[in-house]
């Protein structure tokens, strides 16, 4: 029991956050980081299935998917993209703040991130409502009579395939929104924990790893936006 126990005692004295099975904080931090990156890989594979379905149907029914895409409001999509990019910046600033021991600044930036997350969800709510009103929600009330505007030329499309587009739209943005909600929850929790003094310049690994998660959710949106909103927009 002698050696490692003594080291453990020293380590505990050095940092109360050190878990017993790690030799030192650096090992713990590296392990946590690697764990988070691996988790992000699983998230990429998870969304990957949806992207795969999208790719297949886009290649099979391009006109129909384009017609569906053209009914989405680019304005909202673009604003949401900007919102998320800014929120990723605020996350980085929050991490930077805690690295310098500035707890209050950290909380502020985390709070802004949360607010931006809610803005994103609010805009999505507006968009979903619009789709509901236009009867573009897949299911028994789905109704589509538009065409695919190919640079002025109108190409007819099969409403069933357009419904496929909207199925993918709701599945992909819905899954993304679910991840946003989880992210907001995590950021809020971290803000509270920071306020309670849990984090400092010596220990802020959870904030860093949560930041990675937030960035991934942001990146996924950056793929979703052009794939869903910008199919064949030439104007």
């Amino acid at each position: 029991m002698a050696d490692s126990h003594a080291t453990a005692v020293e380590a505990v004295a050095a940092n109360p956050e050190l878990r017993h099975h790690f030799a030192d904080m650096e090992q713990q931090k590296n392990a946590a980081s690697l764990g988070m990156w691996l988790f992000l890989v699983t998230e990429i594979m998870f969304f990957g299935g949806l992207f795969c379905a999208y790719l297949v149907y886009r290649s099979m029914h391009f006109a129909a998917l384009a017609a569906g895409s053209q009914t989405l409001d680019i304005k909202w999509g673009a604003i949401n993209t900007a919102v998320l990019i800014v929120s990723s910046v605020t996350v980085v600033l929050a991490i930077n703040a805690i690295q310098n021991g500035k707890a209050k600044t950290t909380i502020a930036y985390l709070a802004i991130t949360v607010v931006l997350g809610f803005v994103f969800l609010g805009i999505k709510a507006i968009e979903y409502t619009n789709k509901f009103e236009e009867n573009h929600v897949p299911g028994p009330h789905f109704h589509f009579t538009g065409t695919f505007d190919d640079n002025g030329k109108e190409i007819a499309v099969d409403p069933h395939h357009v419904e496929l587009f909207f199925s993918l739209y709701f599945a992909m943005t819905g899954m993304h929104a679910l991840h946003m909600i989880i992210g907001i929850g995590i950021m809020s929790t971290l803000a509270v924990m920071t306020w309670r003094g849990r984090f400092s310049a010596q220990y802020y690994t959870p904030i860093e790893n949560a930041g990675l998660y937030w960035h991934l959710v942001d990146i996924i949106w950056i793929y979703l936006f052009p794939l869903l909103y910008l199919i064949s927009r030439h104007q």
Partner: protein
Amino acid sequence: MASAAIPANQIPETKTNYLTNGYSVKSWLLTTDHKRIAVLYLISITAFFFLGGFFAMLIRLELLTPASDLMHADTYNKAFTMHGMIMVFFFLIPVVPATLGNFLVPIMIGAKDLAFPRINLLSWYLYILGGGLILHCMLTGGVDTGWTFYSPYSTAFTNTKIIEAGLAAFVAGFSSIFTGLNFIVTIHRMRAPGLTWARLPLFIWAQYATSIIMILGTPVVAITIVLVAVERLFHLGIFDPRLGGDPLLFQHLFWFYSHPAVYIMILPSMGVISELITAFSRKRVFGYRFVALSSIAIAVIGFLVWAHHMFVAGISLYAAMIFSFLTFFVGVPSAIKVFNWTATLYKGSISYATPMLYAFGFIGLFTIGGLTGLFLATLGIDVHVTDTYFVVAHFHYVMVGGVVMGFLGGMHFWWPKISGRLYPEGWAKLSALLVFVGFNLTFFPQFILGYLGMPRRYADYSQMPEFQVLNVLSTAGASVLAVGYLLPMIYFLWSLRYGPLAEANPWAAAGLEWMTASPPPTFNFDETPVVTWEAYNYDELDHLKEQKEVAVG
């Protein structure tokens, strides 16, 4: 091997080990000790194994006679579905990683625990939650789609509880992902000083490769399940051709996980076999580098072959040819392992202890299973035998003849470490024999049945009474196999109370796990080991033993 039991009155003052470190229910249910979690998994996985086995018994009993006379066809369809779902998601995928893997990975690399002990506990609770869901599903009607739940039958035609069953698999999938994640981080970041990658036991290499597949593949089946549920709930048309969707897309997404999943099942058992062969030949494995890297090769190539389940599904001719070609590639690393294990026996010092018998059995049965996989990879033959009992026989040879034999061999080998007791060798050998004989009698006739044309998932074959003889043989074998599986349950439990106490290294085997007490203390080692030796250093061990004998005698 001389008796390894220590008479009770000569045991030195016992220190606390992981089993005696707290007896309350809370100390077990809220444990973060990887060894206790492994035991929790062992109990729950064994329970599901017997449940899955119960459904197997229903199937075999029904198939004794050509007519569908034991149960209604719907019930039979639910029986084989539950058998498949439980065996795949709740037994085969977690059995070696979550029990032997959880127990041994930290100890084998000289660590005190896995990287994320609380996530490890979460994994178990997710498994229990998933298990609870599948039990509830089963008790309130069950599912009848087959474990492969193909659309559009599963999305638009069946009235059984798809969403609940899908949810159960989804949750169990996350249990699997977290286990894999934990192992990868642990193996990367927590190896003892001096333990380089080239010195790792092959079991660790195998677990590492398995974990890669777990984290890359499982999320894809997760999203597939979500899409099926969404399609059922909201009548969307993602996989429904009447609404413009493509049923083949489901199959591609499903098999993209489910093929690598079979490598999740077999790789850990292959890791076990490597350990058994070395320990019971007292030899470093032949071609260590090749065996280690073959695990990684199987993991990687395994992701490239999924559509060999779809040769007659309606994919293009050229796609079929590509996947057939790639499938032959994945057979090569498996063959490399078998040859290396066999070569390890050469000039070894071979013991016939029960674990080694299971290893021998594995080599034989996995070779047959793997070779019949080549039959299925061969396009011209696959057209005839796919969706028949030939496939059923093939996958049971690799899953049962492979995974389960490996698991049982590992359980016997590490039982003294896990429980601190020795199992009764005589009964164990008998069970191994029963398992081997029962298994072959159950599944070899099915190869013939398949080639003769008996399709899978048939409750009734009254128009083809010529199939009965082989079915009866198969059921007879299953009865023997069942006994072979029940006996270890009984004698392992018996040994907990009446078995002789085991010393730290009853097999005189190499490996860090044998350098700590049986059972180990909660933090595994009294002192963190510093590794200066290669894996399977039997030369050194025997040398040390000789020195000790010289000193003593």
